[in-house]
């Protein structure tokens, strides 16, 4: 390759950019690990309470992350429980039954839903709770249930798209096989299409779980607080890891608290990256299956 001037400049730019991106993220991850590793002890999670008893909830934890971890798990389960069935149904409809104009309009609607900033979704949730508070029952306010619902709304378009592209990505011959044997559309879905798309759909669900676990803006407005203990009821406030991290960054009062913040950051980072890597490995598993073992 001739080292013309243009080539040289481009070379520097391209290689330099790759280095910049990689080292940028490397610095972020490295910094978190460096500052957070010293915090990795059982007291990070359970504070001054005895770990085993605190794990089972017999003893309250005041200066540890365990309630936040439980809170995050609870809200993610709620969100996924709401969004997965709805997303599955809508994705199936889009892939199998919607045609022409309807399909286009629905796709646009879901593209818009996917683009709505998370804080706006949180705001929607908050206003919803105001309405419910006024018109249904004064007991209703920002709470675990509301956060779960709003997180569900946040990830719903991604799930829909995952299901839709999983089904539409199946080879045409597979999509036609059962039909050519006299199957109805629903039978085709149930016996052939859905079983064949499980990997892709599972990947989508796992990525959605990751998105719910890390989100802060939505739960900020719909029920996450700094101190609430372990999640006791659907209609009460709760703690969550990402919220804790945000809270510490502006309100920390001691070096110990800050240390805990870094510890929380490591835990959250591990959860998110871990989920992501699981999803990636599932997706690569598909590649080999689709070719029917040939």
């Amino acid at each position, binding site marked *: 390759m001739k080292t013309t001037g243009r080539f040289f400049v481009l070379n520097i730019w391209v290689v330099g950019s790759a280095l910049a991106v990689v080292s940028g993220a490397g610095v972020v991850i490295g910094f978190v690990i460096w500052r957070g590793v010293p915090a990795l002890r059982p007291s990070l999670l359970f504070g001054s309470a005895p770990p085993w008893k605190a794990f089972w909830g017999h003893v309250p934890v005041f200066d540890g992350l365990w309630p936040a971890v439980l809170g995050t798990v609870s809200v993610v389960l709620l969100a996924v429980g709401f969004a997965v069935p709805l997303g599955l149904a809508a994705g199936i409809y889009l892939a199998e039954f919607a045609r022409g104009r309807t399909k286009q309009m629905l796709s646009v609607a879901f593209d818009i839903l996917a683009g709505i900033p998370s804080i706006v979704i949180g705001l929607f949730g908050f206003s919803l709770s105001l309405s419910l508070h006024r018109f249904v029952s004064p007991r209703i306010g920002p709470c675990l249930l509301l956060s779960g619902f709003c997180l569900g709304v946040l990830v719903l378009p991604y799930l829909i798209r995952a299901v839709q592209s999983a089904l539409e990505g199946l080879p045409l011959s597979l*999509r036609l*096989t*059962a039909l*050519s*044997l006299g199957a109805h559309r629903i039978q085709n879905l149930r*016996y*052939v299409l859905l079983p064949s798309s499980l990997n892709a759909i599972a990947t989508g669900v796992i990525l959605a779980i990751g998105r719910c676990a890390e989100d802060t803006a939505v739960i900020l407005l719909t029920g996450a607080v700094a101190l609430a203990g372990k999640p006791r009821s659907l209609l009460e406030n709760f703690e969550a890891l990402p919220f804790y991290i945000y809270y510490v960054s502006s309100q920390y009062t001691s070096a110990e608290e800050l240390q805990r913040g870094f510890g929380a950051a490591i835990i959250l980072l591990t959860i998110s990256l871990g989920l992501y890597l699981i999803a990636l490995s599932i997706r690569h598993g598909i590649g080999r299956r689709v070719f029917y073992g040939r």
Partner: protein
Amino acid sequence: MGVKIRLEKVSFRYGTRFVFQDISVDFHEHELAVIVGPSGQGKSTLLMCLNRLWEEIPGARMEGKVWITLDGQPRCVSDPSFPATTLRRRVAMVFQTPNPLPMTIFNNVAFPHKLLGVRDRNSLEETVRKALMKAYLWDEVKDRLHEDARHLSGGQQQRLCIARALSLDPEVVLLDEPTSSLDEKAARVIENLLLDLKRRLTVIVVSHATDQVRRLADRVFRLQDGSLRLDPSLSLFCVRY
């Protein structure tokens, strides 16, 4: 020999692009008709008009009428009031590349019956055995019925697909280049199978290989430039009638 399938002025288009227009032709009962012609001009599409599988493809439109004699009665199967699922059980299709479902050999062949709600183990076993025998596959797989169908060789998979298609006792079988992905030995087995099938059913095959056409066909049709005609030059070699 009665008319089994009649196409009346059948046209087909994807969006605004016509694939073929105003095709009118009869296929006879118990004949093995072969359709030849240049690639990409609609032979597979023509087959799909006979079992209405084209309806599952977005943007596809068929005009005209298709009549098929089923259970002794001519029925207008292209009419929306005739259930497509029923049609596809009487008019079976085998695709160019073998497409076993991701299930065991047994479940593949039993699948059309499971779709109909048949649960009885004994009757399913009997049906599967008969179908695999008709497809010249029983001896090779009778000891491994519960293995994954994808472990079979190409030729075996294609015969499996034929067995699966035959398990409902269809009256017509459509085969779209059934041996093009197979080696010669496997192809010959399937050709003999088709000649055998013709005694009980009507068989329509799309093929590219001239010598295969000569070995198999009662009549040969050429689909070219949007129309379907009897091809006299190839039919000359077929001394069947």
